[in-house]
């Protein structure tokens, strides 16, 4: 009788799991480990959550009113300034009309997030539909979509946005729609190539062979596999929209005063920046942190959900 040695292969053939396989972390645990082990993603998510918290509870966490003007207390410097005027009542000081700067910063976060998110949704819908259709059907559809993308790219975004807003008249809704209708190009480009890649895989051919309808293939076969690309572009475009809104408001054609917007706060402080540089440093830093955090979250999500990490 030959002695049988038990090897991993014989065990695997018999369907028996080894100790390591039983103890190996589940895909869910692996995912969680990847997410919590990604410093960029964690830092970005933390900053973003703080800013979202500021925006949601602006009225609760601040004792002041964002529109309350009191010229008697104007241009109080922030607390770290070595000035007798600095006071904990207004930790970040007050602006040229005596409005509490910290409170306006909280409310400005609302405007930035609202415009960024809404414009991202609109442009995401347009771009994703165009891109997925082009990638899935190819041929003439692809040519038309490509043409639309090239045409859109040739129009200078800021200039067209400024011109349209100046003609139509500026309001929060107008800014959201103009930006949403202008920045769908990256969605279309990325979704098109992502769909093209998935389209050529075997499971799509299998679904076609089974006689599934186009809609069903798009929804159940294509959509789940291009989702990670969509999420990454969505974060990038939200950041893009926030920067554009700030630039528009800075040039006076975005959100109108007295609504607090970070771009508008920098614009209002422009004339005073030589004497009180903190007036532009504070909203600028806030804007920078918000965009940075959204980009970090986007980059992090791409790393974490990349298919090559999935094994």
């Amino acid at each position, binding site marked *: 009788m030959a002695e049988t040695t038990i090897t991993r292969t014989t065990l695997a053939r018999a369907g028996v799991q080894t100790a390591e396989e039983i103890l190996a972390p589940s895909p869910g645990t692996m995912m969680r480990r990847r997410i919590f082990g990604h410093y960029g993603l964690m830092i970005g998510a933390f900053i973003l959550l703080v800013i979202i918290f500021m925006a949601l509870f602006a009225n609760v966490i601040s004792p002041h009113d964002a529109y309350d003007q009191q010229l008697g207390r104007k241009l109080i410097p922030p607390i770290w300034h070595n000035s007798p005027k600095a006071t904990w009542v207004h930790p970040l000081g007050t602006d040229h009309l005596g409005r509490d700067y910290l409170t306006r910063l909280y409310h400005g976060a609302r405007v930035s997030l609202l415009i960024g998110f809404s414009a991202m949704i609109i442009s995401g819908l347009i771009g994703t539909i165009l891109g997925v259709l082009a990638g899935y059907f190819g041929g003439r559809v692809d040519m038309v979509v490509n043409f639309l993308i090239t045409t859109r790219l040739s129009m200078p975004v800021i200039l067209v946005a400024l011109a349209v807003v100046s003609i139509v008249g500026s309001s929060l809704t107008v800014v959201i729609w103009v930006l949403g209708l202008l920045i769908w190009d990256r969605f279309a480009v990325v979704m098109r190539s992502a769909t093209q890649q998935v389209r050529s895989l075997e499971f799509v051919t299998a679904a076609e062979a089974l006689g599934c309808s186009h809609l069903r293939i798009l929804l159940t076969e294509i959509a789940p596999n291009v989702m990670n690309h969509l999420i990454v572009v969505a974060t990038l475009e939200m950041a893009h929209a926030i920067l554009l809104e700030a630039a528009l408001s800075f040039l006076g054609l975005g959100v109108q005063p007295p609504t607090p917007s970070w771009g508008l706060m920098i614009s209002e402080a422009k004339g005073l920046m030589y004497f009180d540089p903190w007036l532009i440093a504070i909203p*600028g830093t806030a804007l920078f942190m918000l965009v940075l955090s959204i980009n970090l979250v986007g980059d992090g999500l791409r790393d974490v959900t990349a298919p090559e990490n999935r094994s």
Partner: protein
Amino acid sequence: MAIYALKRLGIAILVALTVSLLTFSMNYLSGDPAITIAGEGASIEDIENVRRYYGFDRPIIVQYWDWFTNAIQGDLGRSFNLRQPVAEVIFNHLPTTMLLGACAISFGLTLAIPLGVLAAVKPNSIFDRAALTLAVVGQAMPTFWFGLTLILVFGVMLRWLPITGQDSWWNFVMPAVALGYNVAPAVMRLTRAGMLEVLASDYIRTARAKGLRPMKVLFKHALRNAVIPVVALAAVQFGFMLGGSIVIETIFQINGLGYLAWESIQRKDLPMMQAIVLILAIIYVVITFLADMLNAFLDPRIRVT
């Protein structure tokens, strides 16, 4: 090559035509252009006069055809505000913006390409980390705020550079930096990715095996192939820059196309706005067309597809 070029040229012309239609339709964005031009508090008679004077009473197709045929012949209408031919004013302002754009893109490329190469040569090293961090930070920086900060630090506090105007080369330093740093992250990432791919290829191994000096392998064999996609990106970015210079030109008060656009937008000078958008779009179309041709020349594989 010729077929590829003709195909691309056809698309370029079609894009230009579509943009001309879109810019023309800006007239009707507010509903009635005559009311916009006549301004607030104009009487019905005034509005009717304006309508007849500018020809808005004619059918829209006729208006477009007129505007279009004139535009082809170099007549883009008269500015409402400056009372001068639009084309003349624009071509007086264009060189300044082109110069600014050229300075900005040069700055962006000289910053990004060496960083990208360095990051790719030693992936995951401290250089790589630093370059990626710089890219992330650069992407998040609002252009106008960066411009103001530069003014504050180098113009006011250190007094190294002039704040506004365009009298000397020194005036262009800060605007070019503020406009150009924007390009750096994307170019850096693309150079890094291209270099990583090329450095892993067989012909680089062969070059190394032959005993060529590392520097020669890096710059003569690898970089040449890795920067091909950067050409197309740089062209696209240059086009975006001309549009984006409106913010920088208003901050630094440089009297270029961006500043002109800003003034005409504030005064609702429709013919001027339309012409600037149209010209920038055409410049973009021409630049990307040339970049595509250059790319096809550099990389024969493109011509086939």
